[in-house]
């Protein structure tokens, strides 16, 4: 029997970078195959070749034994490949059923047959164990369900091989759990799944086999039982990675950020301080007010009531400029929307928001030399690849874009660092680096507010942990005493253990 997917000697070059060189990947039918590797290793590129978004410069692709000659999305779909995009391709104002059948709507006469569409979606949902209300509007659904709709859409088009690029990057741990359950059920129905992830724990739990890429090459394919997380990380990076970073006890000084009864959107009155030299973690199931908190604390949303003082200045209704002025650095939740300007160069993105500082603006003129020199320095220090400050931000891989944002915000030397999901989509090596950088900020005396849906991240870094539930603080735990279980109970509204 031929393998579901066989890619041999794949090569793909971009103007300034070689994304894939001699990559080999064999995925058997009916398995869950994970793809891992550093940021920029070429994972997304390889999958885009498979689903017809890129044509390879060299190499052979076979799908169920048939060699692919036509690298176009339509041909890939016809061959049974289905890609679940990270940026969901959905019409938010249409219903689930309408979105799933979009492009091949069932008709009755000249009219759209809504009922048949809904029946078909319900049928698909129950067959694959993916229940969703076919009549719900996409925009009303949480991300996890939107993704489910995306999977249904792909299945509705007859996909036998599903590709998911970092599917859990935007999901809560609970949603991730249910996604992996879905993948297992797809597998039991004979479908083949390929997924990319930086979360090694999930890779271990969900995959049957794993292929690791490094710098555009295949490092190897192994059955998941033969490797542990440390081994995977070592394959990815080429050196052992420290998962446990040693952390000295915090020596907090005076309060930098004072938040009192702050409310707005889903946030219903929170009160806390963040002191210089400490990291305060905010844990909680996503959608319990974290986004609003981050937005208010970076000037993107005006608080409904309450106050937020940064170094003594009341800013709860001020704009971003005033916050930065007072000493904020912020790693926003959505780097593509708020953190970066895709069509500008990495160097320009690295000064975005600091472009008015005297170093970069002399009498209103951009100081190009200072910008370029600093960009080169940051690109090297943060290991941003490709190491080319003139590259457009858009051409960078997901993790490298995040490194650009982190590099810029840390180079502000902030008094308060608000970090929302700082390691979302970045590889283990970079996670280690970003965690060290955050700890270095603390050691320097910065106040750090860390919002993350990754409990291990919060546990590893935070000195104190606030748990948000229903827009209010459900409890506060000292970092050293916190456990994942204990936090989990608080997060879901239970009493502190």
């Amino acid at each position, binding site marked *: 029997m031929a393998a579901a997917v066989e890619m041999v000697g794949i090569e793909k070059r*971009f*103007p300034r970078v070689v994304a894939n060189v001699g990559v080999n990947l064999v995925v058997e039918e009916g398995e869950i195959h994970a793809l891992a590797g550093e940021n920029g290793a070429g994972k997304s590129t390889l999958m*885009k070749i498979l689903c017809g*978004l*890129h044509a390879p410069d060299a190499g052979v692709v076979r799908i169920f034994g048939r060699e692919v000659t036509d690298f176009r999305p339509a041909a890939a779909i016809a061959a049974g490949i289905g890609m679940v*995009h*990270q*940026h969901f391709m959905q019409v938010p104002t249409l219903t689930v059923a309408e979105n799933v059948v979009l492009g091949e709507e069932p008709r009755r006469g000249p009219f759209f047959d809504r009922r048949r569409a809904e029946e078909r979606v319900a049928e698909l949902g129950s067959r694959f164990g993916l229940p969703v209300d076919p009549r719900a509007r996409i925009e009303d659904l949480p991300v996890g369900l939107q993704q489910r709709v995306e999977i249904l859409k792909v299945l509705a088009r007859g996909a036998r091989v599903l590709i998911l690029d970092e599917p859990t990057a935007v999901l809560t741990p609970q949603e991730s759990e249910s996604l992996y359950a879905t993948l297992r059920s797809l597998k039991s129905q004979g479908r083949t799944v390929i997924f990319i992830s930086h979360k090694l724990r999930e890779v271990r739990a969900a995959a049957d086999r794993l292929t690791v890429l490094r710098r555009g090459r295949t490092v190897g394919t192994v059955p998941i039982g033969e490797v542990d997380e440390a081994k995977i990380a070592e394959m990815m990076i080429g050196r052992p990675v420290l998962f446990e970073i040693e952390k000295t006890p915090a020596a907090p000084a005076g309060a930098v950020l004072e938040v009192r009864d702050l409310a707005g959107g889903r946030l219903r009155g929170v009160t806390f301080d963040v002191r210089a030299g400490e990291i305060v973690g905010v844990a909680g199931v996503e959608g319990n007010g974290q986004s609003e908190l981050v937005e208010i604390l*970076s*000037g*993107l949303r005006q608080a409904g009531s309450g106050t937020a003082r940064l170094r003594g200045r009341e800013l709860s209704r001020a*704009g*971003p*400029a005033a*916050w*930065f002025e007072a000493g904020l650095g*912020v790693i*926003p939740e959505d780097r593509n*929307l*708020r*953190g*970066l*300007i*895709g*069509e*500008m160069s990495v160097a*320009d993105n690295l000064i*975005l*928001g600091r*472009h*008015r500082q005297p170093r*970069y*603006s002399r009498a*209103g*003129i*951009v100081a*190009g030399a200072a910008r370029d020199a600093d960009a080169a320095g940051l690109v090297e220090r943060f290991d941003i690849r490709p190491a080319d400050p003139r590259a457009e931000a*858009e*051409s960078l891989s997901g993790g490298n874009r995040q490194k650009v944002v982190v590099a810029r915000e840390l180079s502000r030397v902030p008094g308060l660092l608000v970090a929302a999901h700082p390691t979302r989509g970045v590889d283990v090596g970079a996670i280690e680096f970003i965690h060290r950088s955050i700890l270095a900020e603390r050691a320097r005396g910065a106040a750090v507010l860390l919002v993350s849906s990754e409990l291990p991240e919060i546990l590893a870094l935070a000195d104190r942990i606030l748990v948000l539930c229903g827009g209010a603080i459900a409890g506060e735990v000292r970092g050293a005493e916190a456990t994942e279980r204990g936090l989990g109970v608080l997060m879901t509204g239970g009493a502190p253990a």
Partner: protein
Amino acid sequence: MRALLAHPWTARIGPPVLAVACAALLGAALVAALGQNPFGLAGRVWGEATRYHGLRDDAAYVIAYATPLIFTGLGVAIAFRAGMFNIGGQGQVMIGGILCGFVGWKLAAWPAWALVPACFAAAAAGGAAWASIAGALRAWRGSHEVIVTIMLNVLAVALTETLAGGRWKSGAGMMSQLPDVGPGARLPRLGAWPEGSTSVVPVLGIPVFPAHVPANAAIFLALACCVAAWAWLWRTTRGFELRATGLGPEAARAAGIPPRTTLLIAMALSGALAGLAATDLVMGQKGTWRQDDGLAFAGQAFIGIAVALMGQNHPAGIVPAALLFGALQRLAFLLSGVPKDLVFILQAAVILFVVCGNEIFRRALSRRRAA
């Protein structure tokens, strides 16, 4: 070849060049469909073009026609870089023009060194003020600038007519027209410069421009504006903020760039450039603001949109694009034996092909870097 295709300039220069080629082919096909030999027609046009002063006349006319297009094209481009579509060039030209004529008339006694800048400032201020209305409404009230600028166009026609035919009217004639500007406000024609020279300007001893062609020194202002716009957009902090706002409005706002002020500045600059186009008419050609001339002249602002598109919203692209559209206008006078509408068809075809070309190149590129 690969490297050439991948070069960032290919996506910028490719579409306009291809568009011109395609439009030319389409034009030839149309001529053939009309039962004429396209090569024969081209030969006749060439003969006509070179009849009197060789190509000198034509070159001078092309420059004359291109001058207002450079201004209005730049105006559209600046707004576009900030993410806005300013189609109110017509109104901005008219308000700028009447103010330019007003200042030139009221301060007629001033010497040229003072009056020329004053008239420039008036034209720019008029256009800027008019466009700022749309900018402010967009920034503070969220009204779409396309709708607002269209309405402002209508309003500008009415307002200038009221002034030129009323309070500011010259003499007792029927014409809605201001009194002449002072001699200090006149821009010399290229063909009569330096003053007192005969029908042609000697440049390096070569006779260049015939004096009867309306090409005038406003072209130098237009070129200076191109350089200034480029420097401002790509070398100043404000220009950086404007481009950032256009390319990533949310990211720009999150970075502390004030979105409203930036939009307002972009619209004001866009309008100022459009307003400056009127200096060509008022100071370079007519020496006054006359309503009917002004109305016809301001219609050029719509071609400015095409020029910006064709020039990829970049000053260095706008100059050749304006020259191209100027050449098409000149072509209308040289055609014989076919309907003059051919020129309009060519204009439309160029625009259409550029839009399609941009889209095709954009898709080809985003296919390479798909999300």
